[in-house]
């Protein structure tokens, strides 16, 4: 089976720092892949490259088996890949609906749409159904996101990405700074998204969360993927030891 997204031999340097050194990665459709590793292992850099936010110095990215060049987040979005960044990237003064459709507004039909008028009703209904389908708790579609709790905001950010993602969704530490209940909501949401056939890439430092939702776990160490495990065949101890560089399945 071809991976929906695959990276081969990605390298990236920031000055003297080698963030990624010949890193490989792959995710299948409908699969949750956890990307784990110690701080500085290159997880976030890899995700930024795969989501088009940065370009690699070397290596290739394959999308549905075809080589693609991602020069901007827009490129990735057009292929059906969405990213939830660590800092959420919601506009706090806008409503959940406005955030949901920001950059992809539904315009009115005919002349009014050409003049820049938006179809508020369609966007409202679209948001409502997306939030409901994904189980995100959004009580007030008209309120501003900035006035909502961290859990609600994270729910909106994940639901937005999930609603637009056709193929792959990247989540960079989506459960950091969330309470127990909200974390559970986000983890449930991740399962639901993958249930729709979307590949989910999930960066986390939390081994229990990883063990709960991931199908496969890819471990990064010093800018490379050093190991890949099926969840069924591994344990937290094994993952932690791989994260410290004690295991190296893949030759460098």
């Amino acid at each position: 089976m071809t991976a929906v997204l695959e990276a081969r031999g990605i390298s990236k340097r920031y000055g003297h720092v080698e963030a990624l050194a010949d890193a490989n990665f792959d995710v299948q459709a409908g699969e949750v892949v956890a990307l784990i590793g110690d701080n500085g292992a290159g997880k976030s850099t890899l995700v930024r490259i795969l989501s088009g936010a940065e370009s690699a110095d070397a290596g290739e990215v394959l999308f549905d088996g075809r080589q693609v060049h991602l020069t901007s987040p827009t490129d990735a979005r057009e292929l059906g890949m969405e990213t939830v960044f660590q800092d959420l990237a919601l506009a706090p003064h806008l409503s959940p609906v406005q955030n949901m459709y920001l950059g992809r507004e539904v315009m009115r039909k005919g002349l009014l749409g050409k003049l820049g008028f938006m179809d508020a009703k369609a966007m409202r209904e679209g948001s409502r159904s997306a939030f409901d389908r994904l189980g995100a708790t959004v009580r007030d579609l008209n309120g501003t996101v900035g006035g909502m709790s961290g859990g609600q905001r994270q729910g909106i950010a994940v639901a937005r990405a999930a609603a637009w993602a056709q193929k792959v969704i990247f989540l960079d530490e989506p459960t950091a700074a969330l309470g127990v209940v909200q974390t559970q909501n986000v983890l449930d949401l991740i399962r639901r998204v993958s249930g729709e056939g979307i590949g989910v890439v999930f960066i986390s430092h939390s081994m229990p969360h990883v063990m709960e939702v991931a199908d496969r776990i890819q471990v990064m160490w010093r800018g490379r993927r050093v190991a890949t495990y099926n969840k069924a065949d591994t344990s937290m101890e094994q993952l932690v030891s791989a994260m410290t560089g004690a295991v190296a399945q893949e030759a460098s």
Partner: protein
Amino acid sequence: MTTTRTAPPASTEDAPTSRLSRISRLQALQILILLVVTVAVFTALRPETFLTGFNIRGIVQNTAIYAVLGVGMTFVIITGGIDLSVGSVLVFSGVVADKIMVWYGGQGWGTVLVGLVAALASGLAWGLVNGFLVAKAKVPPLVVTLGSLSAALGFAQIITKGLDLRDAPQALVNDIGFGNIVGQVPTIAVVSAVVVIFGIVLLHRTRFGLYTYAIGSNAEAGRRAGVKVERHLIKVYAFAGLLAGFAGLLNLGFFQSTTIGGQSNTPLNVIAGVAIGGTSLFGGIGSVFGTVIGLFIPIVLQNGFIQVGVQPFWQQVVVGAVLVAVVYIDQLRRASALRGTSPRLPFLSRAGGAGSASRKGSA
């Protein structure tokens, strides 16, 4: 105190979620109440003169040109920017329009139309310059528009050798500047009201307005969502410039002069009106309606003080105090609504900088 078990505290999920939007609506409303109270007080003190058709007409006429500038300024300030150049661009556009109308000749509507095109083009050009420097060169808006404030006035004075031009065609002066569209309703006020309504619709109903809010709220979020932030910022400054150009023509009709020396306080008065009207100088929040109310207050005060026999200079004192009080109260409320943010005036920093994203985007 023994067994009264209160209901468990509502979880943060249940907290009222639309506080911010309610606040912005609330503030426009409060300012409206302030305006109504001010009018009521002066009416009570001078019942025979204050609320008369003649006096209202004067107040509305005096607000009309500021309102046109205020529409553009509201958009700019919602993006987190500022435009200090509107007064100078108004003068520059008036000068260019005057020169071109003299060159074209005549006193009729054809001449006014030529002048209109000239004024709009002049304003638009300055707006584009401001926009490019803010969006592409990333020079802080305060500095960019301080520069164009100086340069546009300089050019206007070079063209006129420092002397005001007074060659507005009859049609512009009699029909727009002083004319009534019907009864005692001044044409200039109706023209201004059309611009205001256009601004309200543009801000609240269109994608253009949404992007304006989005950039002021979190430019980085907009960028990641695919909004062309730089291009939109250029459009917003261009729009403000265009309206300043239009105001230049109205100004020429109203004062029959290019008022070269008379506009140095204009940008500050307009900014004060925008701020009093509830538009946040931190970006992301605001309304054109609030701006119009905010612009009326100083003019009503001045008019009222003169009628009541208080030295009109008190108006400046009161407006200054109201401005600071309104922004202070607004800031307090916003601090409690947008959790744990310590705002930093965005127009002192680079447009759409990462600072605003990390400040406003994080929990």
